[in-house]
């Protein structure tokens, strides 16, 4: 489904390491014409938790977010909602979002989105394998009287 894949690429763009995303984009050396619908702006999103995991929602605190929107032509719009305060990251995200809806889709997918997925998976694997190494193994001893 289209929304599912858009949800996926927007998510990887939003949470990308900003330096990594910027280097991937800059390496592509693409010159794209666009118009701003909303220039990059820094704001926040309130993060909600649930009391006791399953109870009422409550506000935990905010996270910084930068967003912008642009259009390539009248039909195609890109939205760049990203974590942090980097306006360039937000613009790259919006451009990628827009280009993923054009014939340049494959270039962006191969050179950016797939690499962001790989980067994030590697990070995840690193954490999981380090956490696993700190797993506690309990030993059971046979007591004398049980012989």
């Amino acid at each position, binding site marked *: 489904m289209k929304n599912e894949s858009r949800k996926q690429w927007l998510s990887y763009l939003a949470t990308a390491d900003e330096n990594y995303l910027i280097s991937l984009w800059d390496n592509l050396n693409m010159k794209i014409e666009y118009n701003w619908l909303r220039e990059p*702006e820094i704001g926040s999103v309130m993060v909600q938790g649930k009391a006791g995991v399953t109870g009422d929602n409550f*506000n935990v605190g905010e996270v910084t977010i930068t967003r912008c929107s642009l259009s390539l032509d009248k039909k195609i719009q890109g939205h760049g*909602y990203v974590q942090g305060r980097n306006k360039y990251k937000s613009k790259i995200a919006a451009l990628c979002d827009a280009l993923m809806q054009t014939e340049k889709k494959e270039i962006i997918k191969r050179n950016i989105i797939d690499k962001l997925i790989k980067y994030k998976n590697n990070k995840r694997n690193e954490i999981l394998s380090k956490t696993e190494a700190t797993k506690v193994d309990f030993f059971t001893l046979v007591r004398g009287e049980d012989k």
Partner: protein
Amino acid sequence: MYVSVKGGEKAINNAHSWLSEIRRGDVNIAELNIKQISEQLTLSVDRVMSEGSLYDKDLSALAIKQSRGDLIEAIFLMRAYRTTLPRIGSSKPIETSKMLCLRRISATFKDIPGKQKLGPTFDYTHRLLDFKLLADGEYEKAKIEKYDDKEIPHVLSFLNKEGLIQKEIPSGRTSKDITRNPINFPLTRSERLQSLSRGDEGFLLGLAYSTQRGYARNHAFVGELRTGYVEVQFEIPELGIEINIADVMFTECESVNQFKGSKKIPAQFTRGYGLVFGQLERKAISMALVDRSMRWREFGEEYLGVAAQDEEFVISHCDNIQATGFLEHIKLPHYVDFQAELDLVRKIREEYKKNEQRT
């Protein structure tokens, strides 16, 4: 009579110049950069994000540098910056059962699905100064092991299944964002949890400790403690698509406390909850204990008149920026107020003298 009503401008400017110089310290020593702080003083950075109520590592590191390492001053800077940010919206409630855990332990059950995983902890260290760190560069590398990438269920959900612990069911009550609305007592639990999550670690630690020592009887176990990254989901307003907009580190603590029961319901454990930004487990545990002690009314317990049960006392005093604002303002010029007090004391003394002469 002339009274000085202005002045000190030069003194203030010069004081700030000196502040700038002393912040830099000895110029023969390399200057700290923000990345060094955010990578190597991570737990200070976490505390400033948690109590500053804004998750942004670079800003937190900047605040720590600017404040010369005074964390409350740094939290103040974060809070001040936070108020300038337009609020884009509110996230979906996070799913901590999907946390990418660095650490996950239970003090109540030994063998649990997902196992006990210690993560990068100070626990079991000997608390001896490590003089190797005085020398440069040496560190041990983390070990790695093969793993199963399975969701780690919450420990208390097992007690839930047997009905041995009180269930956490949404009340349906609406709660206000305490950063946007003045608070009115009594508060909802959600409003209390929001206050506690941004509250002062030291204050919460002291209160939690007081409950352990007997000032609000609710003997607590750490049912579960977990630290790790959670995906924050947010709906993009233009698209109506929910995306993972941020990855945020949290520490969550679920406490298991002594029972409650009645003629209708057999005895059950009760629970408290702590959830904070970053790897701040002392604070998460403190929060869970204080949350629990403030739930006395909900569980039909006796009010013992102790601090940790009194939500008005706890919530009104747990915010270190409110506290320090009011406390520190008394060092600023109060010449006129004090002049009035002085006049009053003189007048009272004069009247006293007159009365004495009369008798």
